[in-house]
């Protein structure tokens, strides 16, 4: 626990110093030295703090529950931090990605001109975000939790707004701010109601649900709905996901990697924490689990289809985060269903699958966002239709992206498969539930999962294939700067996580299942079954990793055999590779522009899923004998944003404008308001 506190102190101290530097930079004329110091100090201290934090999380037995109570000056709440398995497993991506993103961000920002950006401020908010996440995941008091949540929600606003010269970026950060605060409103209501009905703000006292024994089912249902709204907004649950595809492309890539890999997990963390409070051991009503499962399935399908429609690489990744959060929510839903129907297998594997997928998602999504950042850095754009052929120019980066893409497309033996395997196993036991509608519900959800993963493979084939393979489509890609290993080495850690998550899957499964049993405890009667299930699934995962490794060896052997065969023929591969043009069916004057683009790649699926993907096609067709230039433009605007939220907010604006009658600018009438309020309050207070 001391180590954990040290990590927090390092981060806080670094935040203070960077704040000073930021103040210095804004009052004095901008200097390169200040900028460089801020960048160096900020990134190194963030990395150091995270490394310490990682040690703190990994130190000691995983199930040790540590509590640290510090003095607190406020009337409500207490400054209590704690580490238990659930906190630990969610802190792993926070610290791990925090470290990688800090180093990578420091490297990518090292040539920033001090006139354009105040790096001190940037690193201050980065550290603040890290601190906020750390405290959120370890707070043991509702008031502290909410405060940290606010800090965690506010800091990204300034981080997203890094390139504030661009109006789109400013818009995106506003969208983020509004979404974060709407979620926070639900959370404040949630904790207020919790406080009122349980009488305490200490999360430790609430744990296990003993405090809520007397609360009626109506209160519990209201609490559940508020929690899903509040935490779902952070996690990007449809239809509250609209901020993700705006914020992630706008933010610098190391920030979007951290947001997508670690911060949105806070939604899942909060939900699991509050479910532990609300569902005092298997009393959760059945509809909670089903609604979460359905919400997760809908989010997953919507996310992956919208991702397929995107042409901006970072927007695509953002929608893919929405999809992955959907999968995790499916897992939580299945876990709740298992709990309420007394099925140890489904309960254990549902929660475990969600946690395992969360861990793996942090690895590959962090890797992919950082790669996208490097692509942006090297070429100046992340629009896939302008790129292509980057594999030749940036071979290392291409390999890293390919690895991440294969992992997130759930291809064995990489990490994405392990999480989905556990989720699928959880839902496979659907036939043991009572009633055909429940059985079919779980099995059809599993079919939905299969569809999602099939679409994910198509999506990432597109993301990698269009961006990195083929010929450079425009000058952006053709004139890409080379990226040396000196800037790319921070990507090694998430890349390693992608491989290790697959090949060491039993290890991570053990961790996640232990956490799941601890965070969502099962009644004693089911414990034996759960332990049995854990042992069996661990054995299965062991076979998966074994076969995965065998498959890798087999693939290597085949490639080697091919090489040998070619050698024997005396036909050096290198010579042919330089000389031959790709066969164009006899057409010799092909240009890179005739290649398939991202929009054309996803066209067959866009036809089938047209209502969800919502492509907007604008075309100017060839007509007449002497035609003009023809054009085709395919975009995929978010319909939920334009169809649901924009009208909603416009209505609110109209309502607020209507209220402006009472704001007329006459001071004496304002004083009358005050008088009326005071009198009214007096009357009310004396009356009761």
């Amino acid at each position, binding site marked *: 626990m001391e180590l954990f506190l040290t990590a927090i102190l390092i981060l806080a101290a670094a935040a203070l110093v960077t704040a000073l530097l930021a103040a210095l930079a804004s009052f004095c004329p901008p200097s390169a030295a200040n900028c460089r110091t801020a960048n160096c100090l900020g990134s190194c201290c963030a990395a150091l703090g995270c490394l310490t934090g990682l040690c703190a999380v990994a130190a000691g037995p995983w199930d040790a529950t540590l509590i640290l109570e510090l003095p607190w000056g406020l009337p409500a709440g207490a400054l209590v931090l704690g580490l238990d398995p659930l906190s630990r497993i969610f802190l792993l991506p926070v610290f791990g990605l925090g470290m990688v993103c800090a180093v990578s961000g420091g490297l990518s920002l090292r040539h920033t001109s001090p006139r354009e950006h105040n790096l001190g401020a940037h690193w201050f908010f980065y550290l603040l975000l890290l601190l906020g996440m750390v405290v959120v995941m370890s707070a043991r008091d509702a008031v502290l939790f909410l405060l940290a949540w606010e800090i965690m929600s506010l800091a990204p606003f300034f981080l997203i707004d890094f390139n504030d010269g661009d109006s789109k970026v400013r818009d995106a950060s506003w969208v983020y701010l509004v979404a974060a605060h709407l979620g926070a409103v639900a959370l404040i209501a949630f904790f207020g109601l919790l406080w009122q009905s349980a009488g305490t703000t200490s999360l430790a006292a609430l744990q296990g649900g003993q405090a809520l024994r007397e609360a009626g089912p109506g209160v519990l249902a209201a609490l559940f709905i508020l929690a899903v709204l509040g935490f779902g907004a952070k996690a990007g649950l449809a239809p509250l996901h609209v901020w993700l595809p705006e914020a992630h492309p706008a933010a610098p890539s190391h920030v979007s990697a951290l947001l997508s890999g670690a911060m949105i997990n806070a939604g899942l963390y909060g939900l699991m924490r509050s479910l532990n409070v609300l569902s005092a051991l298997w009393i959760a009503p059945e509809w909670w689990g089903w609604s979460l499962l359905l919400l997760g399935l809908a989010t997953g399908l919507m996310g992956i289809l919208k991702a397929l429609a995107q042409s901006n690489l970072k927007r695509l990744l953002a929608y893919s985060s929405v999809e992955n959060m959907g999968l995790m929510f499916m897992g939580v839903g299945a876990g709740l269903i298992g709990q309420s129907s007394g099925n140890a297998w489904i309960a254990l594997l549902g929660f475990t699958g969600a946690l395992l997928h969360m861990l793996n998602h942090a690895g590959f999504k962090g890797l992919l966002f950082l790669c996208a950042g490097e692509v942006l850095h090297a070429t100046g754009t992340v629009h896939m239709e302008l790129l292509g052929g980057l594999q030749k120019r940036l071979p290392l980066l291409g390999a890293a992206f390919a690895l991440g893409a294969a992992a997130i497309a759930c291809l064995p033996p990489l990490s994405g498969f392990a999480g*989905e395997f556990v989720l699928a196993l959880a839902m*496979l*036991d659907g036939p043991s539930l009572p009633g055909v509608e429940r*059985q*079919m519900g779980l099995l059809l959800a599993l079919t939905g999962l299969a569809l999602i993963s*099939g679409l994910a493979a198509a999506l990432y084939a597109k993301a990698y294939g269009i961006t990195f393979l083929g010929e450079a489509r425009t000058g952006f890609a053709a004139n890409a700067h080379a990226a040396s290993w000196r800037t790319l080495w921070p990507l090694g850690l998430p890349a390693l996580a992608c491989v290790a998550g697959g090949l060491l899957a039993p290890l991570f499964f053990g961790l996640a299942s232990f956490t799941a049993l601890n965070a969502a405890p099962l009644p004693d009667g089911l414990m034996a079954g759960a332990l049995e299930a854990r042992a069996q699934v661990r054995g299965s995962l062991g076979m998966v990793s074994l076969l995965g490794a065998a498959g890798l060896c087999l693939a290597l052997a085949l490639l080697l055999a091919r090489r040998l065969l070619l050698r024997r023929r005396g036909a050096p591969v290198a010579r042919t590779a330089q000389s031959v043009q*790709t066969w164009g069916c006899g057409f010799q004057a092909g240009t890179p522009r005739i290649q*398939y683009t991202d929009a054309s*790649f996803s066209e*067959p699926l866009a036809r089938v899923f047209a209502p969800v993907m919502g492509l907007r096609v604008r075309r100017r067709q060839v007509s007449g004998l002497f035609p003009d230039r023809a054009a085709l433009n395919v975009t995929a605007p978010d319909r939920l944003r334009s169809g649901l939220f924009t009208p909603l907010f416009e209505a609110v604006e109209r309502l607020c404008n209507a209220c402006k009658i009472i704001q007329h600018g006459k001071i004496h009438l304002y004083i009358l308001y005050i008088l009326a309020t005071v009198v009214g309050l007096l009357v009310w207070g004396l009356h009761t």
Partner: protein
Amino acid sequence: MNQGTVFYLIQLFLALILAPLLPGIINRVKARFAGRQGKPLLQTYYDLARLLRKGEVIGRTATWTFSAGPGVALAATLCALALLPLGGAPSPLGFGGDFLLAAYLLGMGRFALILAALDTGSSFEGMGASREAAFSALAEPVLFLVFLMLTSLSLDLVRHTGQSAELVAALSLSAMFGGQATEAWLAGRAELLLAPAVFFVLLLVENCRIPVDDPNTHLELTMIHEVMVLDHSGPNLAMIVYGAALKLWFFAALTAGLLTPPLPLWQQAGLCLLIILALAAAVGVVESVMARLRLTRIPHLLGGAAALASLALILTQVR
């Protein structure tokens, strides 16, 4: 090594040896329908032998993704095949949930080939890659639906015999093809016959046979798989051809595994082999009597298969 493992290894060896025979049978049947003599039955073997002796031509656009694609795809298909119970013998590698691994391994192979196609930078191959990605994504849930039906059958069996400890073992391919499905349909549960039917449709879809794709014409704008592998040559093309034959064997063995009644070991294996060869002939017949579907109709075909599979799934849940 016990007897079962040896027997399985023999079966696997037979599959690896005989797989290239299937395209030969299909072509022979098609030729007979068209009133031609046709290529020799062993043509695929000759092709493979010749391709392995040739050098490769690699376009200047291509990178290692292009060169490595076929090898990775073949390795994935081999691993998937090794998980499948063959000729009634359970796979020694089988474990609970291995059908998920097998399905995703096939996905891995497809992914590698799609990337290899995009790596050539030809719009033609991009077209094939895009279609392959789309249709395989749509075929995935159908495959899962059938597997789910089979798992719920084997779970049923486990529950009735009361070995709840073996829950996870019931989720393996070897348990699914343990003969209970065949016994059940022989006893009058006709809905189980939908499973081999859907497997057969999936065989046509995944192996790019006629109502979905025409394996004989490379150069039409409507093609899928063949367009995708157009630029490969030499050993890489050999690996693709052999991988395609293995995949055909994989799906044919899935279908045959459900159709073969439980018999003594050698008889069952022989019958299974016969059914696989007969299925190849059936593919030839289908290819001869049917026209290719329009591309926009292929999702309908898959949707129909999904509907049949879910009907079977619902009915197995009830009983």
